[in-house]
Structures are given as structure tokens and as C-alpha cells.
């Protein structure tokens, strides 16, 4: 019995007609590989499980999942009323609730102010999770709900103005069947709106009880806020404004290249790899021409030229891609502007398919010096002088392994384990050995210990001396499983990295996409932020008792972690970290990609930005 040899292809398991040797017919019957798609289970805890099912639990037909679909429909009805606040009345609300409905006040009194500056005021209240009152809620029946909802709307309104539309969003993240036959849900509720002078947002966590009616429709029995945070902005516009159009000016490169989404370009270029399709293009800021102004380099997928935009004194951009010789059409993921040869100008590093391109800044043009071979599917690149010899070394992350072809989701590979994948690409560290115009770099990944746990689907890395011992350590954010924290040590005078993620208690990450360091609590120690996917469906499923009852606790934990969202790791100063994500309130960052610590309001405290969203097309129905 022989299989056709295929590398990572979905079609890898074709049986080949048996060839008769010596004229005797074959007696073997084709047997199924135990690693085929036939073995796919609905929840991805097994080999070869379909990755997209992590966000599609409805396929397994749990009652609770069918229920949450109905409950979500009801909540959407509620949401519609927020877009026309004057319709919040007993007529519209009656179909949504039971006669015996009771609710707590949705905005507490008092509502403490926890932060205030000239731009905004933050108020916050949180219930004691362990002492939730079950009855005697003060607001009763449909009029009770009208009162409760109207109180939510008040902060959005301005006296004398007609009620402004409020956008609402509901995310059901827990579902539980109660012994009484009723259902209990937890949901994140976001309300966002502006009037002529203010912009306001409310983020609540509601506990709801539902009664399922004979027609299958759930009706609300009780509603209690578990937490609410309200931020009121001092103006109706955002703190940030989009000045891209003015920065590029008219008839610019931007119009042709950047006003069309990648879906447009992917319709017309011969590159069908999944790793391209998800559209991951980096941006780099650096001063290319030493005029004191930061310029912009943008990497692009195959067929679209990379762009160098030079900042002018008035803040606008001029396209310098051709002049500087950097308008390459080859797939490029990320880049760096760094001084590799210590001559005082910014050289260019680009993670292209299969390598790191290094180009020297010659004053008016970049000249390609070398391409360092790497695993094909490169992602982020970072520079650091890991051995303190005065020269910048280069670390590049890679996602897919070469054998996977990068054609489809990794779950198409039979050996793929969603919560602990170890069949990804190998990342590389190159030691800078430039001398007298020779741009030599040596791949030292293995010799210095960075090949340990180095078959992950890596997206990003950041260097930081987290243990304050004077050398730079490395954090690597990996999709589909554990991250790496490589500690930089001197062993007998030699540099040796070791993956201390487990002992430092940082390995509890999930779908790591990006990472940055910052001292968020200002204790002088560098903490770590990692963006991860948040999935309300994953949360609902993974936290239920019937979820994979036979799976080991470790697997259950990992699956739960997989959907939980972003991670903030507090540096404890003793070489370990504490996961403070929940307490810090930063988990729900949706389908997260990029993230950065940054001080938004100059108060000295590091804030966080998370960019997100997987694939949006011009269709109408979202999944």
C-alpha cells in the first residue's frame, strides 16, 4: 500500500492503484491513513482538525449554541432600539421579555470617576462576582426595562437636541443551562455615540437570564450589570484624525495603490498562497536621507511595488521609490531602517520570500548587498546587538514551514495541533560580521541556542532586557500555541539563549500575532503585551463543562486560552511574569494583529493600540 508523495497538499492521500508484481494480484485493500480529513472533529483539539471550526461551534449542534443564536437575535432587537432611542418603550420591549422580568439599575449610583483629563472622563463600576444578588432586583416588568435602558441612553444625549443614534454591539461569551430550565448568558455590551459636543462610549458586562418559549425564542427574565465603564469625551470628534489624504496630496501613488483593498489586487495576480491572501504588509518609519524627518517605507505583496515615501518639511510625502531604487515587486513582508555598517545612515532590511534583503544606503540610493537565505514564509524582522559587539544583528520570524507550501490554512497539514503547533517555519538570527565593505552575516541560530522550540508559526518578535542583566533577551509571538521567551545568558564566556517561557510563566499564550514591551505600571521593569485572537464563540464553548470532557485538563486550558484574547504579562522582577490580562481589561481586542504600547496622552503611562479584523470583503453578510 503506497501513498502518493505530496508535500502538505490537501490531496496528499490519494491511493495509487496497486501494481501487480510477478503476476500475482494484490491482496491488500486500501487502508485509510489515520491522518486524513476524514478524522476531522468539530472541535480542533485533534490532529488535522479544521482550524476555522474554532470560531464556528454551531457545527457541533450543542443546545447552548443553538440557544445563543436565538438570544443574539433578541439582543440585536434591543440594539435596534438604541439606534432610535425614542423607540425605547413598552411596545417595542414587550416581545423581548417575560412578565415577571426584573432588572437591576444598569448605571449604578454612585458611578465613580477613575480617570480624568481635559479630553475625557472615565467612570467605572464593578460588581462583586462572588456575591451576585439573584432576586429582589428593583426594576420590574417592561416598564422596569424601559427605565433601565433609558438610563443608559441619557449620557449620550444633549439637552435640546433630538436623541442621537447609538451604535450597539453584543458579544455573548458565556452560556449556561440552569436547573430551572432557564438559560444564563454573559455578554459584553458596547454602546457608542456622539452628539454635537461629546463622544461617549459605554462598555458593560451583563448577566442575563432567559426563559425559552414554546416557539424557541428566548425571553429575558432578569438582567444585571456585572460591570460598566463609561468614557465621555470632551468633543464630538476622535482624539486622532485621519490626515493621510493631505499627507499624500493629490494624484498621488496612494490613489492608485493604496485606496484599493488587497482583495482587488488579489483578483489579478498569480499568487494564491494563503500567507499572501491574509494581506500582511508592514510599515517602517526612519530617516532615509538624514534630513531630520522620518520617512516611510511600505512593504507590499507580489506584483505591487514597495514604496519609499520621503517626508517634506511641510509634513507631506513624496514618492522616492524609483529614485532610491527600492520599488521592488517581489513579495515583501516587513522592513527595517537601521544603520548596519555604523556609517551614520539608515540601511534597508527587507524580509522577502525566502530571505533577508540587505541594501546599503549610499546617500541617494539603496544598493543591494546581499540576500540572507531564510525559511520562505518570512514575517517580522527585528534588529538588536545580542552579543554587544557594537553591531546590529538581525532576527527574522517565519510562519509556515517550507514543506507546507503556504498554500492553505495550516490545519490542512496532518500534523497540525491548533493549541500547540510545532510544524511551522524556523526563525533565524544572523550575526553582523560586516567589515571593510564586505557585508557578511552568519546564521548563528543553532549555535547560540535559538533553535530550541523553533518550529512555531511566528509572527513577531521584540528584544528587551527583561531581567535587567545588561543584555537583550527575545520574546517571540507565535500563532497556534506557545510563545518563546529566550533568555540571553553568558555560559563560560559564550552567549547562550534558552527558552525560559515555561519557568518564567509566559508560555500561556495562544494565537500570538504581535508583541511589544513597555513598563505599563512604571515600576522600572519591562512588561510584555501580546495580541491574540478573541473569539466569543471560543469562549462560550471552551469554558463549558461538556467541552471535551475526555480531554486532558491541559488541553482544555489551552483551548480556553486560545480564544481568550490579548495578554498582558507583568514583570515581577524575579525573572517571572504574572498574567494580568483579565484584571487589566485588555483581553477583548477582537481578531487582533498589530499592537503597540504607546503613551497616547503624554501622561507618562503606556497605553495600548490593537489593530484588528481578519478579512472584510464587499459582501453584505459577515460570519
Amino acid at each position, binding site marked *: 500500500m503506497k501513498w502518493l508523495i*505530496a508535500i502538505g497538499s490537501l490531496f496528499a492521500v490519494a491511493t495509487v492503484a496497486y501494481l501487480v508484481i510477478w503476476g500475482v494480484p494484490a491482496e491488500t485493500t486500501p487502508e485509510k491513513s489515520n491522518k486524513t480529513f476524514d478524522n476531522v472533529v468539530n472541535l480542533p483539539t485533534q490532529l488535522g482538525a479544521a482550524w476555522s471550526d474554532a470560531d464556528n461551534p454551531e457545527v457541533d449542534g450543542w443546545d447552548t449554541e443553538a440557544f445563543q443564536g436565538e438570544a443574539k437575535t433578541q439582543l440585536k432587537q434591543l440594539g435596534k432600539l438604541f439606534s432610535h432611542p425614542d423607540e425605547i418603550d413598552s411596545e417595542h420591549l414587550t416581545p423581548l421579555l417575560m412578565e415577571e422580568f426584573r432588572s437591576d439599575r444598569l448605571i449604578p449610583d454612585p458611578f465613580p470617576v477613575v480617570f480624568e483629563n481635559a*479630553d475625557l472622563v472615565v467612570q467605572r463600576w464593578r460588581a462583586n462576582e462572588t456575591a451576585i444578588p439573584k432576586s429582589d432586583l428593583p426594576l420590574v416588568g417592561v416598564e422596569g426595562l424601559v427605565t433601565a435602558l433609558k438610563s443608559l441612553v441619557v449620557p449620550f444625549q444633549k439637552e435640546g437636541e433630538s436623541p442621537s443614534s447609538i451604535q450597539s454591539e453584543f458579544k455573548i461569551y458565556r452560556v449556561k443551562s440552569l436547573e430551572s430550565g432557564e438559560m444564563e448568558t454573559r455578554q459584553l455590551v458596547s454602546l457608542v455615540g456622539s452628539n454635537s459636543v461629546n463622544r461617549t462610549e459605554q462598555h458593560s458586562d451583563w448577566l442575563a437570564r432567559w426563559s425559552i418559549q414554546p416557539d424557541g425564542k428566548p425571553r429575558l427574565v432578569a438582567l444585571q450589570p456585572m460591570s460598566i465603564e463609561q468614557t465621555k469625551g470632551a468633543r464630538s470628534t476622535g482624539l486622532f484624525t485621519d490626515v493621510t489624504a493631505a499627507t499624500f496630496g493629490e494624484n498621488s501613488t496612494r490613489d492608485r495603490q493604496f485606496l484599493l483593498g488587497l482583495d482587488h489586487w488579489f483578483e*489579478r495576480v498569480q499568487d494564491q498562497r494563503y500567507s499572501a491572501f491574509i494581506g500582511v*504588509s508592514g510599515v517602517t518609519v526612519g530617516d532615509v536621507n538624514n534630513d531630520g524627518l522620518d520617512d516611510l517605507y511600505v512593504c507590499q505583496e507580489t506584483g505591487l511595488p514597495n514604496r519609499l515615501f520621503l517626508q517634506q518639511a511641510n509634513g507631506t510625502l513624496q514618492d522616492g521609490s524609483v529614485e532610491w531604487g527600492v520599488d*521592488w515587486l517581489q513579495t515583501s513582508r516587513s522592513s527595517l531602517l537601521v*544603520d548596519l555598517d555604523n556609517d551614520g545612515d539608515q540601511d534597508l532590511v527587507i524580509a522577502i520570500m525566502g530571505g533577508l534583503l540587505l541594501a546599503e544606503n549610499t546617500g541617494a540610493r539603496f544598493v543591494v548587498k546581499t540576500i540572507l537565505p531564510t525559511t520562505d514564509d518570512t514575517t517580522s524582522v527585528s534588529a538588536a546587538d545580542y552579543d554587544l559587539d557594537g553591531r546590529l544583528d538581525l532576527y527574522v520570524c517565519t510562519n509556515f514551514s517550507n514543506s507546507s507550501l503556504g498554500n492553505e490554512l495550516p490545519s490542512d497539514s496532518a500534523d497540525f495541533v491548533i493549541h500547540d503547533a510545532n510544524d511551522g517555519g524556523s526563525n533565524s538570527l544572523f550575526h553582523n560580521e560586516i567589515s571593510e565593505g564586505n557585508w557578511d552575516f552568519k546564521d548563528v541560530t543553532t549555535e547560540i541556542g535559538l533553535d530550541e522550540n523553533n518550529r512555531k508559526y511566528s509572527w513577531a518578535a521584540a528584544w528587551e532586557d527583561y531581567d535587567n542583566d545588561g543584555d537583550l533577551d527575545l520574546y517571540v509571538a507565535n500563532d497556534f500555541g506557545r510563545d518563546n521567551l529566550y533568555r540571553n545568558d553568558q555560559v563560560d564566556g559564550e552567549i547562550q539563549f534558552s527558552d525560559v517561557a515555561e519557568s518564567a510563566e509566559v508560555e500561556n499564550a495562544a494565537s500570538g500575532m504581535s508583541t511589544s514591551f513597555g513598563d505599563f505600571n512604571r515600576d522600572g521593569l519591562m512588561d510584555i503585551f501580546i495580541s491574540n485572537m478573541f473569539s466569543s464563540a471560543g469562549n462560550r464553548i471552551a469554558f463549558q463543562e461538556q467541552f471535551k470532557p475526555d480531554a486532558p485538563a491541559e488541553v482544555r486550558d489551552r483551548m480556553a486560552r486560545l480564544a481568550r484574547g490579548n495578554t498582558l504579562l507583568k514583570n515581577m522582577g524575579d525573572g517571572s511574569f504574572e498574567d494580568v490580562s483579565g484584571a487589566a*481589561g485588555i483581553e*477583548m481586542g477582537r481578531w487582533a494583529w498589530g499592537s503597540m504600547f504607546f503613551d497616547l496622552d503624554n501622561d507618562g503611562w503606556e497605553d495600548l493600540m490593537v489593530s484588528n479584523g*481578519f478579512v472584510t470583503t464587499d459582501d453584505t453578510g459577515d460570519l
Partner: protein
Amino acid sequence: MMREGRSFSGREKNCVFLNTGANPLAQARFADVSSISGLDFPDDGRAVALVDWDHDGDLDLWISNRSSPRLRLMRNDNDAGNHYVMLRLEGDGAKTNKDGIGARVELELGDDTLEAASRVRSVRTLRGGEGFLSQSSKWLHFGLGPSQKVRSVVVRWPGGAEETFTGVEADGRFRLIQGQGVAERLSIGNRTISLTSQDQAVAKPTQIARIPMVDLLSVPDNAFVGFDGRKQQLMDLKGRPILVTFWSSTCPHCQAELEELTERYAELQAAGVEVVALSIDELSDEKENKEKARMMVKENRYPFTVGKATPQIAAAFQVIHNLQIAIHRQLPLPSSFLIDEYGRLAVIYKGPVTVEQVVDDLPHSQGDRKQRFLAAALLPGSNLDHPRVDEIATKKAVRLSYRFGNDLQQAGRPDLALVQYLDALRLKPDFAEAHYNLGVACREMNLLDKALESFRNATECQVGFAEAHNALGEMLGAKRRLPEAVEQFKKAVALNPEDEVAQDNLKKAQILLRQQGQ
């Protein structure tokens, strides 16, 4: 699903979390200020880079998106009234890298009257690349809060010592040069920046496209049915360039295209192009449309080959498209495929194509890969000339043919798979798996000599290829070359002792060999 053009976790709004640490009441919990930040676009956001673009002392953001607009510069217009300093580091270029990347800078705020313990500190490290696919400005940004007094600035240079700098004052930009100890104030210079805020006009995507192929895939043969009911093989026309165009009687663009092809057929003939226009009306249930198509053919007396698409040939071209293009939406009508005289797909046209375009595109597949690559560029740009780039590009082309070969083999068409494997091997002659799979295809087609040769090639291209040794043994056995077969089976078993088939083969071959000896 997404490939077919549906959203998946789409229209998600970016998130911004405000650190409320300045107030102990907030208990180290961030506030969700996504909406108030104005950064909550429903874009498919990716990279984020920080820079004080307008030199006003706060951080602006460059963001890249998958969706349109794919770039945003978001200017920070916060009005919190706090102070700042911006610092640019310069290493000595000997002990410390010139950029000062990896340097840790610690600021102590507050005046001398405060106890050391109650003074506020801020630390930042200059990093070369962090976040996601991004590198931020090398200007380090420090928000000072309400404080206007920077008490001390200490830089820990990587590879160098700790150094204290004097001269840093609130609301300024300073250069810190290693070894100088005194910060150098940089004047902002003559900058008048008036970047007005404006929504970006998002352009609508379109499916209509001309796609010149960089890698040329051999098109497997398929059949269509003439309006006279006669079945024809597409590749019977091979030897000349073929334009296969799919049309429907209900599509006005198709009719216009067919008219142009008819009127200017002489030009196509002169250029040697065969046109095969296939109606997809047969695939619909609408009897009326089928009749309409028949009437169109009858009335217009098209000078080129017309026929009815079979479900197979229509599906085949969709598959050929999907194999190479990331978005797998159903092909629009009309859609055309230009196949060169060697049977390789040269250009895909989604939407109408003109005679002029076809004639222009005829030389496309004759150029070398670099020429095709530049011709296929979506916007003008340059080719990165380097052997490593060529190597990666070749690998991509090889995989395309190889994968398609496997698919065809899977579909039970070793005859078609064989062509793909040969294409792959032409580009990468030492591709062991392709040799092996070619051997399998040949074996199925009873081309035993070819199979034997392919398996042998596989064993030679890849040391330790157990399956290939076994398969080669089987071929040798079939040829009654028993001693050689035994040798191959032994290798296979040595490489993979658990391979029961190879063990069995070895036993049988040894028995036969012994029987022969007697």
C-alpha cells in the same frame, strides 16, 4: 469561504486601551477608549508604527490595512495638556551601534525637593522592529504628565556604560550622543505643517481583470460539444495559440465580444490564433437560453469554433483559475483564457477582451520569467535581480505544476498528471518527489520502463527515500531482475523497518530468487 469573497471576522473596529494608572482608583485597569480615540475604523488592520510626524510632541500612528484604505496616518490631536520630551540617541558606532538600538533610557521627573522614592520614573527602550511587521521612529517619546521638570536622564548603552545626560528640558527635542553627557537641543526648524483631516475616498474593487501569467501551467485537455453535437477535444487544436472564451446568450458583454471577434477575425487568423467560444447556456436549466444560444450561433455564423461547454470543461477552467489566483469567486462572463502553442496558459481575461489585446499578448509566454514577471506587475515597479530570488521563484512555479499533478493523479488521470510532473522536473530536475510521483503515474499507465527510470531517479535525487526504493524494487521485480529487486527492497526495509509491504516484497523476491536458483 473567504476565498469565495465572504467576510470572516470582518469589519472589526480597532481597539485602544487607555492606561489609567495615574489614578490609583483605577486599580491598574485600562479603559476602553476605542471610540473616543477615533482609531476605531472597521478596517482589517495590520501593522502599526509610532512617530511624532508633525513634531508637536505626541505620537501619531501609521497603520497598514488589508482593506481599503490600506494606509492611514492618524494624527494625535489629544488636548490633555501634558508635557513631553523627544530623544534621539546616537551610539559611538564602536562599542555601541550607531543607532543606539537596545539602549534603555530612564527619566526621573519632579524637582529636588521630593524624596527620591516619590519621584516618578519613566523607562523606554529603543527597539529596531517590534509590534507586528513594523518599525517605529527612533525618536524616543516620553510623556511627562503635568510635570515640567526632568530631573535626570540616564542612558544605558548596549555594549557601553551607563551615562547621565544633562540639559534635557520639557517640551523639547534632544539628541543624546554617547560620551558627551550633555543633551543637544534640536530646533524644529522651519516647518509649517497644515495637514487637514479628511476621509479617504475608498475605491471600489472590481473583478474585471487581465492576468498575464508568470508561471505557465500546462492546460490539461478537456472536451466540449459542438453545436452539431460532435464532441471535440480542446487540445486537438494544440500547436497554435488558442483563445478559449466562455459566453452566455444572456450576457450583453459576451455578445459584444463575440461580435468583435467575428469582425476582426482576420487579424486573429493572421496572428495564428484559434478561437474556441464555449456557450455555458447548456449548463443552465433555462431551456429558453439554450435555444437562444443555438439561434445566436445559427444567425451569426461565427467564423471560429463555437461549442457548448460541458460541466467538466467549465469546472476545469475555474479550477485552473483557483489554483493560481487567491480570490476564488466564480468567474464572470465573459471570461477567456489564452493558451499558447505549447498548451500553456498565458493570460486570463476576466471580463471582455479585445482582439488587439489578444494579439498584443501572444508574445507574453515566449519571454523569460523576468520579462513575464514585469509584464504581470499590477503597477510599474522593478525586479529584484538576485539568484536567491530566482531560486524562490522557480520553487513557486515547480510547486504549482507539482500540486496540480497530484490533484490530477488523485482524480484518476495519470496521463494528465504526468505532464505536470514533467513540467515540474523541467524546472527542477532533482525534485525527488516529482520523480517518484511521475513513476507512480507511469506505472498506472503501464509505462513500466518509464516508471522504473523515474523511481530510480527518485532514489538518486534523495538519499534515504524508502518508498522510492521499494517502488523501484517492484518495477525491477516485474522485469524479472530479481537480484536488483532484492537489493532495492533491502534498502527500503533498512530505511523503514516498519514498512510491511517492503518486507513482504523482500520475502517474496527472495523466495522467487531461491526458486530460480533451484
